[in-house]
């Protein structure tokens, strides 16, 4: 079954500073962690896709009534915490495994190497066929 693990720009549970304010060695450790996690999930055959999104500064919000010209709102937006920052799509054997991966991702290292407790949303992807009961 497939799950999407979603990261937003909301603050992490145990870290209140954004990455660009960390020490270089902490940033390096964080980048290494993310890379290793991606490689681990690829090696275990569970990774479907992982993408990071460009910053909310470049986001545009579009709405249309289907007739007149669409309304396009440009950034920067005053409130960006809810914006999607990136996602993994994993194909795993159980919901527990998806949660386990999310927990591992959440504990990415931050300042001083301490886990930052990033909030990861775990969402089942609906195209999955029903399982036999």
């Amino acid at each position, binding site marked *: 079954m497939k799950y999407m693990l979603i990261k937003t720009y909301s603050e992490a549970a145990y870290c209140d500073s954004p990455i660009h304010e*960390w020490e270089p060695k902490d*940033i*390096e450790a964080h980048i290494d962690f993310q890379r290793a996690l991606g490689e681990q999930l690829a090696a275990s055959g569970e990774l479907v896709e992982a993408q990071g999104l*460009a*910053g909310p500064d470049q986001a545009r919000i579009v709405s249309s009534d289907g007739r007149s010209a669409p309304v396009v709102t440009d950034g920067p937006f005053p409130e960006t915490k809810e914006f999607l920052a990136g996602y993994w799509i994993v194909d795993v054997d159980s919901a527990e495994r998806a949660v386990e991966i999310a927990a591992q991702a959440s504990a990415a290292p931050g300042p001083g190497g301490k886990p930052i407790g990033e909030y990861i949303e775990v969402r089942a992807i609906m195209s999955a066929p029903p399982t036999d009961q």
Partner: protein
Amino acid sequence: MTFPPSGDTEDLLRELRPQVLGVLVRRFGDFAAAEDALQEALVAAATHWPTDGLPDNPRGWLIQAAHRRMTDAIRADAARRNREAVAAGREPTRPADITTPDRDDTLALFFLCCHPALSPASAIALTLRSVGGLTTAEIARAFLLPEATMTQRITRAKRRVAALNRPFAVPESGQWHERLGAVLHVLYLIFTEGHASTSGRQVRRADLSAEAIRLTRAVHGQLPDDPEVTGLLALMLLTDAHRAARTGPRGELIPLAEQDRRLWDREAITEGVRLTTAAIGHGLTGPYRIQAAIAVLHAQATSTEDTDWDRILSLYRLLERVAPNPLVTLNLGVATAMAHGPSAGLDLIAAHQDQLSGTHRLAAVRAHLYEMAGDTPSAVAEYTVAANSTPSVAERDYLILRAARLRGEVGPDRS
């Protein structure tokens, strides 16, 4: 008859592919059917040649095999529609087609796949598929797209060229320059796509930079005296020579100034320098030649300090006149800073602010120049803006780290 190792057969088939496809399309005028027939012939060759031995004339063998399949397909088609005229009107392939490689055929295929009627994305896909011989799946993976999307893109591109008037004609002299320019542009886009994708995803056989170099070599083989073709090949070789040095252990981008130049590919540089010398012998009048000349000056320097920035600056000025675009202006700003100091560079960029506001590199270049000028707070601020706006993960990681290291140098001021 010789028995080639299977890898050699594969290389040979890839080299012959555009030549044979060119002959078939020209004779039958049906691009899609020619590709199908060639595909079958290539599979037959890949199966038979390693065991039965290489035929004396591999190209002729492929043409005949594909020709037979096309004729069969046309006959079957004609019979189905109860129309015999089509097949009856076909003559067998002229002997000349089989024995002498017809130079025009490969070129004509390039012109067709890079036709100005196609969008760049379609032309890239069609070129990689039809001239390069990559599978649709490989092209899709190289561009991180679903295979169904790539299949559609290629199908639509083929349909588009099929609707053109005399699509497979080599352009007449009046159009030659523009059409060749379109081919070179597509090859350059394929190259830069490969050069920019440092996401660490390895795609078997579909390494886009290597493929772009291979295809540009093929065009150069057909037009050895065209200085822009030569210049583009040189530019690709000189740029690709940095490959091993341009990313760090974390996949982050390493800028030219900080690269370990011992990791540069000397063989590629030697060839690039030789080609550039030949190309600029025709005058410094084309954008690829000028860029190759700049790349040579970088390649010949042992460090940033040792680089001939005055000459690079004058080449960028020339390039801005010949082929102006925002990236050239930014590079002109960097070269100005290196030759005459960072404030001169910042002034030049400020003077062109309006044209540059759309490029994500603007903040990164300004950050570098502020750093050179010793204005650390402005540099950190610009690096952070740049990190938030780059579409490349490797570049973002580099920019975040660069800002963090700079901040570390001035102390833990987090105001």
